[in-house]
């Protein structure tokens, strides 16, 4: 597609429920990132996938968060047993090559998650 696509654009869920957020990166982009943007905050790195390498999960805030990337393309971020502090905009980005010098990140419009 023309850009990074994320779905749903908005998600309201009850505390304790699980949610799945989806990201379709730009076709051919090998790197995929998930970031979280809380109200009034900057972007917090969550996880990074590069090709078939093991993902960099160093930013995941707890074991309730997980992500996978199937076939090197679509990615799903899963949050189990959601808490109110998980409410944020979850942003996905992709880039074309290994390393930031090859291609900067292209961001999707995000999924706004609200946990009630």
């Amino acid at each position, binding site marked *: 597609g023309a850009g990074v696509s994320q779905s749903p654009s908005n998600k309201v869920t009850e505390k304790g429920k699980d949610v799945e957020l989806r990201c379709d990166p730009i076709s051919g982009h090998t790197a995929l990132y998930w*970031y979280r943007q809380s109200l009034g905050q*900057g972007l917090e790195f969550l996880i990074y996938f590069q090709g078939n390498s093991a993902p960099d999960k160093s930013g995941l805030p707890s074991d309730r968060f997980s992500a996978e990337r199937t076939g090197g393309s679509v990615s799903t971020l899963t949050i189990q047993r959601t808490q109110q502090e998980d409410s944020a905009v979850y*942003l996905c980005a992709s880039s074309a090559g290994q390393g*930031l010098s090859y291609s900067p990140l292209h*961001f999707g419009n995000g999924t706004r998650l609200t946990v009630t």
Partner: protein
Amino acid sequence: AQSVTQPDIHITVSEGASLELRCNYSYGATPYLFWYVQSPGQGLQLLLKYFSGDTLVQGIKGFEAEFKRSQSSFNLRKPSVHWSDAAEYFCAVGGIGAAGNKLTFGGGTRVLVKP
């Protein structure tokens, strides 16, 4: 660990006036530096980037930024602001190697433009 500080949370500027947004970074090696803009209801858009070479880089929409290694800064400037520049601006740092492939963002500066 890499980090980015944007000291100004909000800036209000009159249309036609100049704008400068501050960014200070901490990074253990040669940094890659970026400025992104997030307009209301839109995704983040890359304004400009610095990898190496000339320390004054030009970007889209009339923006420029200057890399100053001695001050660990990468301030963003625009000589004459337009109303459409009202948005939130994020500075980010990354680098080479596996640890550097992730961008670390500052907290953002929200720019309001007065008519």
